[in-house]
């Protein structure tokens, strides 16, 4: 009997260690793996937005319930965009497949899947473009890198274009300046023509379109949440903040991602904003209002289509117009700033009913926001500090050894690199940069941007966030860094699990949370805790039981 049992070596030799598919990439059908994709869009949300082919569907099913003429829709959709966006046409034609971008994508680095090389991801679409829109491709087929559109190709598009965070790190290295994110944007637009969105995008977009923010928090609940923070702030500092809501004729409208209002640790950043505004109001008569209607800086429409992005962006400006403010101050958000800096002016601009932003406190004219009329709060606060307008006690953050994560969109999308660092170094005594090549223009993405910050794709998020976490781990081991500070709400939401998985000793904070800790408020009581109710350095024994 025992003789019949296989030998250990026989069993071991049967394990196939080779993960390379036997066929070329073009002929290898997609394997949609759980943990790597987000759930399909809910028909209710798609319908509410008036987008096509709203129906329940499951990416794991063979039948995606596509319209009969889906190939025609893809062809026409591609054609329309090639005509409309010159950049897209150029990006389709000029890639020489040099491979400079290939190993720069965090998803390729982390997952090890070659179809996540930006060049190959783009090639998924380019191959169909060649087949349908170029003579060489049409005549020579595969030899010219062309292939016809099939259901497998469509599924491959869906799977991989929702494994790109549109972070644009690859485009920094492209000698031709091809913006692969733009290719992803076009592919997602075309997928949306067939109702192939993910729900983590579609439902927040629908909520934002209707109620004004991703979760669908109604105005009274939004105000309640902020009042909740006001109570906490009073307990911590003894100062009663008095935020203004929907105030007509206020000087400035403040819009931040709703994540700051309902999700930790973003909430501590919101408390930082409240403290800053109260400080400025008391000292300089600063007149800023929150809006319970313009209650979302994030714009997941950007991850759906240009039209959807435009609709959501216009709501912020409509609210600014309704309230009659002079300009808009924006909170710590990532892609909101890419939308403002790169698209807003063309879509909804110029916002000539607003004034060119000037800080009422320092007189600084924000010329970079001349047309969009919207200033990033990190720029605004950096300017205040530069002009000695804030009293700060950075010792209160001495428990924090910080590093700074450049969020892709403010860094690569608007070039804001030094302002947040200037603020951070003025409110915190311990700061260490991550290695070059992982910060500033070359920053590694959090791995969960562009609407991929769902729960069901956790493997993708952990793999995609590995290069970022790896650099954090380095500064943690070298300098004892214990805080990853950033200026993006998605970062603040996704970094806690990412850190817990790769570098569990490192916590996550927004920039203005640390500003709030350091800011010396008029009439404040002796502070014993930070905004998280954790003891300040040396105050461990003074906390009330």
């Amino acid at each position: 009997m025992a003789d019949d049992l296989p030998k250990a070596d026989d069993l071991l030799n049967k394990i196939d260690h080779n993960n390379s598919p036997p066929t070329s990439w073009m002929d290898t059908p997609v394997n949609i793996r759980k943990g790597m994709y987000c759930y399909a869009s809910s028909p209710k949300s798609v319908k509410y937005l008036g987008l096509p082919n709203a129906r329940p569907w499951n990416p794991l099913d063979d039948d995606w319930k596509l319209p009969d003429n889906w190939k025609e829709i893809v062809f026409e959709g591609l054609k329309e965009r090639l005509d409309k966006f010159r950049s897209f046409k150029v990006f389709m034609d000029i890639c020489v497949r040099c491979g400079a971008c290939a190993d720069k994508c965090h998803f390729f680095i982390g997952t090890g899947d070659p179809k996540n090389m930006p060049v190959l991801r783009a090639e998924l679409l380019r191959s169909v473009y060649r087949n349908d829109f170029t003579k060489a491709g049409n005549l020579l087929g595969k030899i010219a890198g062309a292939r016809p559109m099939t259901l497998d190709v469509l599924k491959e598009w869906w799977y991989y274009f929702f494994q790109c965070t549109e972070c644009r790190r690859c485009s920094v290295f492209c000698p031709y300046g091809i913006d692969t994110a733009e290719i992803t944007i076009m592919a997602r637009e075309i997928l949306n023509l067939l109702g192939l969105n993910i729900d983590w995008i579609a439902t927040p977009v629908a909520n934002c379109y209707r109620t004004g923010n991703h979760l669908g928090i109604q105005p009274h609940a939004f105000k309640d949440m902020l009042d909740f923070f006001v109570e906490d702030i009073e307990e911590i500092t003894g100062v009663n903040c008095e935020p203004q809501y929907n105030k007509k004729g206020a000087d400035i409208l403040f819009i931040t991602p709703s994540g700051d209002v309902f999700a930790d640790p973003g909430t501590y950043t919101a408390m930082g904003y409240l403290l800053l505004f109260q400080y400025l109001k008391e000292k300089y008569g600063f007149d800023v209002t929150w809006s319970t209607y313009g209650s979302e800086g994030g714009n997941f429409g950007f991850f759906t289509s240009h039209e959807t992005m435009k609709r959501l962006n216009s709501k912020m400006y409509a609210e600014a117009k309704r309230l009659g403010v002079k300009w808009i101050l924006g909170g710590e958000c990532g892609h909101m700033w890419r939308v403002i800096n790169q698209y807003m002016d063309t879509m909804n601009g110029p916002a000539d009913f607003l004034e060119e932003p000037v800080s009422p406190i320092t007189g600084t004219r924000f010329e970079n926001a001349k047309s969009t009329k919207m200033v990033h709060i990190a720029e605004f606060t950096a300017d205040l500090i530069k002009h000695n307008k804030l009293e700060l006690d950075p010792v209160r953050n001495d428990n924090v050894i910080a590093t700074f994560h450049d969020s892709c969109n403010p860094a690569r999308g608007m070039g804001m690199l030094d302002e947040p660092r200037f603020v951070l170094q003025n409110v915190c005594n311990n700061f260490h940069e991550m290695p070059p090549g992982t910060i500033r223009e070359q920053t590694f993405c959090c791995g969960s941007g562009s609407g991929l910050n769902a729960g069901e794709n956790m493997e993708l998020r952990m793999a995609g966030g590995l290069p970022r976490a790896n650099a954090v781990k380095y500064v943690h081991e070298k300098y004892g860094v214990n805080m990853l500070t950033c200026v993006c709400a998605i970062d603040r939401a996704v970094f806690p699990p990412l850190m817990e998985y790769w570098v569990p000793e490192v916590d996550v904070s927004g920039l203005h949370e640390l500003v709030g800790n350091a800011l010396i408020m008029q009439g404040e009581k002796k502070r014993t805790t930070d905004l998280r109710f954790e003891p300040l350095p040396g105050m461990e024994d003074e906390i009330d039981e």
Partner: protein
Amino acid sequence: MALAELIEQKKKAIINKWYEHVVATYPSDTARFLKKENDQFANPVGTTTMHSLDAVFEGLLNGADIETLSSDLDPVIRIRAVQDFTPSKAVSFIFLLKNVVRECLAKEISKHKNKKEIEKELDVFYTKVDGLCLIGFDIYMKCREQLLSFQANHIKDRTYRLLKKADLLSEVPEVGAENISPNV
């Protein structure tokens, strides 16, 4: 002891060969990148894997305890636990060490004056590798459970404050803080 001496002479070659085998578990385009790029920030998967294998092999040779072996093995398993590997493929690279050692030392063993002794020591070494694989399996499971807990907490973290504020939660108070009517 004889085996330990042979391994010591070929240590670098064994680790490199083992690394090559591990890298070969990735698609060929990826494997090329993992072998070529030495920058630890540009290639965290390759450099972490190499570092991990190196430390684990050293630990095996020096009789490291389970805790040390586990912490050395963790980084490479942690990576493979989120990549496109079945559970068996994620950890089976550990077994490959057996083949690698035998291949690298084949000539030396065949020529060795005390061949039988070496074979006996090899058996002991193989048993250690089997044990290492079980440690790897524990790490893999821990990682996967962690991923599931993130998924479970995802929605809760996002909405907890809202639910609390809306008075939709009724959490138990501290024991002793409640006034419980005596006739209930």
